[in-house]
């Protein structure tokens, strides 16, 4: 059994007067892929963004409750959000490589976090990250080419490589495949399966089939509530809550 990596208790998020997340309690396992599913506006992305304090960057957003990473309160005053985000990496919906070379895209994080002492160290980190991103073979001969020149699927895998370059412990993915074709999607899904050996992966997806394919645990959000959380197999064959059933079977919920 996996150990708990992230523990959220009584989490509330407000955007101004809007109560976007209500009383969410959840334990997210280490070395596991956890899928967050639910209709648009249900709060799944908002919750994802709580885990690396991305909501801090939104003025009107207010987060209450406790979120612990390995038992430590990530909203503690002493925690530096930038350091936190090195530990909790994020991959976004649209591939967003920096307008720099493939090499520099990956090297940027390790450089600013001082993870490499020498050029050789940095080369090694970049290669390891690109290998973990399952894109090394495709780019090893053109590391100085711009990252933006890659195909969409390659760009997304580059972004994943960039996210893992700082040796994070948690990887958050916000619809990482929605801009990709089926082949690139399959490659990223295969990669996610690889990544779970080292990381706790939390993925927001609108594709229920993707959630079913890649995750071991699934959390269903609806109107800001965490309605049901359980083994993915159970959620997709025999959900306990009628709202989960309505949503995953494509009925009006």
């Amino acid at each position: 059994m996996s150990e708990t990596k992230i523990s959220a208790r009584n989490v509330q998020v407000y955007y101004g007067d809007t109560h976007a997340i209500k009383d969410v309690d959840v334990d997210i396992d280490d070395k596991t892929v956890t899928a967050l599913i639910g209709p648009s506006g249900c709060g799944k992305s908002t919750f994802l963004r709580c885990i690396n304090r991305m909501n801090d960057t939104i003025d009107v957003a207010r987060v209450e409750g406790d979120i612990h990473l390995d038992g430590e309160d990530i909203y503690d005053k002493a925690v530096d959000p930038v350091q936190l985000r090195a530990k909790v990496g994020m991959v976004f919906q649209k591939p967003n490589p920096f307008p720099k070379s493939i090499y520099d895209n990956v090297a940027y994080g390790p450089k600013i976090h001082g993870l490499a002492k020498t050029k050789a160290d940095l080369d090694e980190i970049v290669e390891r990250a690109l290998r973990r991103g399952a894109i090394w073979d495709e780019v090893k001969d053109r590391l100085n080419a711009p990252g933006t020149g890659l195909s969409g699927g390659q760009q997304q895998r580059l972004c994943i490589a960039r996210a893992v370059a700082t040796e994070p412990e948690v990887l958050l993915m916000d619809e990482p495949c929605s801009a990709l074709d089926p082949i690139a999607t399959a490659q990223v899904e295969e990669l996610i399966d690889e990544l779970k050996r080292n990381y706790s992966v939390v993925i927001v997806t609108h594709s229920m089939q993707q959630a079913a394919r890649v995750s071991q645990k699934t959390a269903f959000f609806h109107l800001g509530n965490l309605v049901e959380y359980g083994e993915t197999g159970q959620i997709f064959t025999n959900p306990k809550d009628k709202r989960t059933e309505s949503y995953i079977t494509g009925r009006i919920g």
Partner: protein
Amino acid sequence: MMDESHIQSVFDRDLEKIQTLIMKMGGLVEVSILDAVRSLANRDEELAMKVRENDRAIDQLEEEIYEEAARIIALRAPTASDLRTVLTVMKISANLERIGDYAKNLAKRTSVLVQMRPIEGAAEQIRRMGREVEAMLKQALDAYIQRDATLAEEVREQDAEVDLMYNALFREFLTHMMEDPSNITACMHLHFIAKNTERMGDHVTSICEQVIYLVTGSMPDENRLKEDRTPYVRMGAGE
């Protein structure tokens, strides 16, 4: 089934279609059971022939259901109760097909038995047994279409009655064969018929379990309690 409909209404129509096919198949199988035991009781060779021919339509329906179910899985990726609907449809159609085969076999043996001296009372008892199984099947299919797990559980328990009828027939055939060896051929055929009818009941039980799975999401935990078989083991008819 859930009261709400799918956002994609064509998905609802697909699911309705396979369930309509199951009900149609169930109807044909019910007729086959009744006709088969009636052909035996009335020594009606023509009716027996009709049962054998009608089995083809049952087999074709099973195939059609299988293909439709495969198509739904491929195109709609059903989940939760939709998935269970498709899975149970496939399993129930296989159960129905087996029951249909037993009825056909019964009809085949009828064609042989009409050439022989009847065994007193046997055909009538088998007819009662067949009617019992047919009534159970009707209720099991009702339970299916109404998503009624309680009714399915009740029908499941009725199978003990069919088992008792079979045990009684078994003892009777044994007595007839011991009394007069010239009864052996007919009694062997009749015993196969009784055993096959008892097996039909087991397939109905399996349909009931599918209904329970469809409604509750899990199979019933324990096996139905078997009746005490001591007298019957002593007579050397171990299972």
